[in-house]
């Protein structure tokens, strides 16, 4: 699919000044996406970025493609109409944790269940950035913010679990600062036909600085990130001298996925990642390994399975209808007349 069109990252930059706070994780994501775009092998004019409202949702202004900065929470719905009516386009949605999971939660889960052909980039900074720092549906319980001076009492969503509960065919997670990983996930997402949800952990250095610090700090990250690669064991942390994995995801006696230490490579309990498992129960179990403080965050593709896309199913119905009964030149006239006319 990826014809080399000779495009470069800079071709995807616009003349608009980027207006995020200095140090915001959005910059890194923007650079990674712009850097990845040429790989798509799709002409710029066939790409559309649709966003909602939020700091993250300013994204389309900076992408030299077609784009729409819409209203809060509605990007998946708008993109559904666009993608479904224009199957020739590559449609991307950029959204934030508030935009996607709070006001836009319903559109998100419905796009996922329908499997509309969209790539959704969910910038999760666990805060409302643009409105200056209220807790979001991804914020930790007890978080103190402008609107929760005594600590948030809202139990947060796990966005990956939400997506899997909503029949998602593709769910992945990555980190703003790890460009290589981010791009590898984008690659997988872009290849997926249907709705691909990519949760990107993004630092908001103004209102929620350091939310993902333990996943970034070189002292901790290897012990906290579970890197998922299809067909590979879910091992992480340092490898011991005896070849056993410092940490790994295993399936315990009760059948639950859990993290164990010092697991031998041949341990039967060791879980080999299967991103293509048809049953989402496996990916769901993976999503539950993470605790609220981001400890044991699986990163990479949780699930990627094939299912017909909504866009294609609709296009097929139109084709079938037209094939069966082509709308020739008289079609409109005979439709309007119907079966029971009389003439005066």
């Amino acid at each position: 699919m990826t014809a080399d069109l000779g495009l470069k990252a800079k071709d995807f930059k616009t003349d608009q000044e980027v207006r995020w706070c200095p140090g915001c994780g959005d910059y890194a994501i923007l650079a990674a996406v712009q850097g990845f775009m040429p790989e798509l092998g799709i002409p710029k004019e066939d790409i559309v970025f649709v966003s909602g409202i939020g700091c993250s949702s300013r994204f389309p202004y900076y992408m030299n493609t077609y784009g729409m900065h819409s209203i809060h929470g509605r990007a998946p719905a708008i993109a559904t109409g666009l993608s479904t009516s224009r199957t020739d386009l590559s449609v991307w949605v950029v959204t934030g944790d508030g935009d996607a999971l709070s006001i836009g939660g319903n559109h998100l889960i419905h796009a996922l269940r329908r499997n509309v052909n969209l790539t959704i980039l969910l910038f999760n900074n666990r805060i409302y950035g643009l409105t200056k720092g209220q807790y979001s549906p991804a914020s930790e319980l007890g978080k103190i913010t402008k609107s929760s001076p005594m600590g948030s009492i809202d139990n947060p969503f796990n966005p990956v679990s939400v997506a899997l509960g909503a029949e998602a065919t593709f769910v992945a997670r990555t980190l703003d600062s790890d460009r290589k990983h981010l791009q590898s996930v984008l690659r997988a997402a872009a290849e997926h036909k249907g709705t691909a949800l990519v949760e990107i952990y993004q630092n908001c250095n103004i209102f929620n600085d350091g939310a993902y610090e333990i996943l970034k700090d070189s002292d901790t990250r290897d012990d906290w990130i579970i890197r998922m690669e299809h067909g590979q064991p879910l091992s992480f942390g340092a490898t011991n001298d005896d070849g056993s994995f410092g940490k790994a995801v295993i399936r315990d006696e009760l059948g639950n996925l859990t993290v164990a230490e010092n697991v031998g490579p041949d341990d039967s309990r060791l879980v080999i990642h299967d991103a293509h498992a048809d049953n989402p129960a496996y990916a769901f179990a993976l999503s539950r390994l993470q605790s609220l403080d981001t400890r044991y965050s699986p990163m990479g593709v949780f699930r990627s399975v094939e299912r017909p896309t909504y866009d294609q199913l609709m296009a097929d119905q139109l084709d079938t209808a037209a094939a069966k009964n082509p709308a020739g030149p008289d079609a409109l006239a005979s439709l309007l007349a119907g079966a029971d006319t009389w003439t005066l």
Partner: protein
Amino acid sequence: MAKSVEQLDRVVIRIAGDSGDGMQLTGDRFTQETAMFGNDLATFPNFPAEIRAPQGTLAGVSSFQVHFADHDILTPGDRPDVLVAMNPAALKANLGDMPKGAILIIDTHDFTDRALARIGWNSNPITDGTLDSFQVHPLELTQMTLDALESSELSRKDAGRSKNMFALGLLSWMYSRPTEGTLAFVEKKFANKPDIAAANITAFKAGYAFGETTEAFAVSYEVKPAALASGTYRNITGNLALAYGLIAAGQQSKLPVFLGAYPITPASDILHELSKHKRFGIRTFQAEDEIAGIGAALGAAFGGSLAITTSSGPGIALKGETIGLAVSLELPLLIIDIQRGGPSTGLPTKTEQSDLLQAMFGRNGEAPVPVIAAQSPGDCFDAAIEAVRMALTYRTPVFLLSDGYIANGSEPWQVPDVTTLPDLTVEFATEPNGDGTNGGKVGEYLPYLRDPQTLARPWAVPGTAGLEHRVGGIEKADKTGNISYDPDNHDFMVRTRQAKIDGIAKSLPPLVVDDPDGDASVLVLGWGSTYGPIGAACRQVRTSGAKIAQLHLRHINPFPDDLGDILARYEKVVIPEMNLGQLAMLIRAKYLIDAISVTQVRGLPFKADELADMLTSVINTGAVNTESVNS
């Protein structure tokens, strides 16, 4: 026994029964027969919000009224000449509307003490004198149906279900209707259930034969075909005509059609209808809610589709924010509101005109949107095409208002010659429009560079190389469309968007006032579905020798340029509306005339009689002084 045939010029029939009794279907069929016969007609279905309200209750009564005539008519009639009541509740619920001397055909099957008591009747009205002033035909319709189907395999219960067809057969005989259509319809509808088809046909024929044979009916009637303008006609409901208008507009604009909708009464049928016509390149998206419905439509509009969203009041209320975005994006988008009784859930299956101000103002900021209204079932077709014309030409969302009355009501419709339909072809932008002097460099694309005539912006759809651009809901700089917080630019853009909508008035044809002698002093001004009742009222007024002028608005925003002059010509302007005076407010504000607002909010269309009385009193006394119409 040979029976005499009486000639009538018009008849109004209402059939009423439980909502499970198939009254709507019966009415439809009778209407179709009548249409085929060539009468002019108008229909009025009226049913409860419940799917099948409990049998035998007043709340569960469903009715269908049809008015047909040998001349052109405008409404389904104020008061029925004939009522067919399938049970006591149907009789009780409708009796109040029946004029003295009317014919009542009553299925006596359910007139048991218990059933009567259930609806608060202590004795049998058929025998206790209640119906003395009517021509009553108490008949065992159900029993006769069962008898006719004795030899069928059907259970008693299933057989009894055909009683509506028996009644239809009887009516068909009474009014000399052609029956082939109904027979063919039944065959087709129950193609998979031949025993049901057979039972219905048997019952229908039995009813017809009963009329011919029984002594209960001494005469049958004939209403000659109407001499309408020559052409090919069909019967059509407003929602069907509206759907056809959209399909036609898709063909005429050569754009793929995209409907984003969430079901809601009484708009759902447009979704249902369009979903059948995929072969015309029509996509229907049943969204998760109204916001997604309009959102998806807007997305499709960005992609170059003819985008539509349909709903009714409560759903429209949810779309306000997205309509604002569409105003800001300046993309074509049809917003169709089939109004129903409000506020809130209100009266979902009843009609009302109370969303006009919501259409005008129901969103944040200065967000002007053209508003037009359809005036009759068949007119919904033309209204749809006009709405599309405005949306495509001016790159703007457009509100099209219809309501439950004309959406479900039907009338004969002259099938348009498709070659006469307007050309709605759109030119997408294909080239950069910057020329180095107009705010853009040569080779640059300015998404908000406007057409000087229409003030419309260009429509460049994704896939067009070199025109990549971004649009959004934040205020944007003139021409470039980039985000701009500049105060003067904002003021300019707000006024420009308003000027664009106001400028549509230039494209409107002159208004045509119906003022036969040109010397009336009272003008009755209306919009939407009051067209029929007002028109019928005007005829009555004129028949009585008085003068009255009628003007009905298709365009409410902007008002046509000549409206002010016309209003100024009359001493009094009367505005009847099925709301508390919404158009009246707009007219008063703009033209500073003391328009008389006459309102009814009963979930039902005005009665022509009452309007006529009201208008007569205005003509005679300068004021409304009839009790039957609120003002």
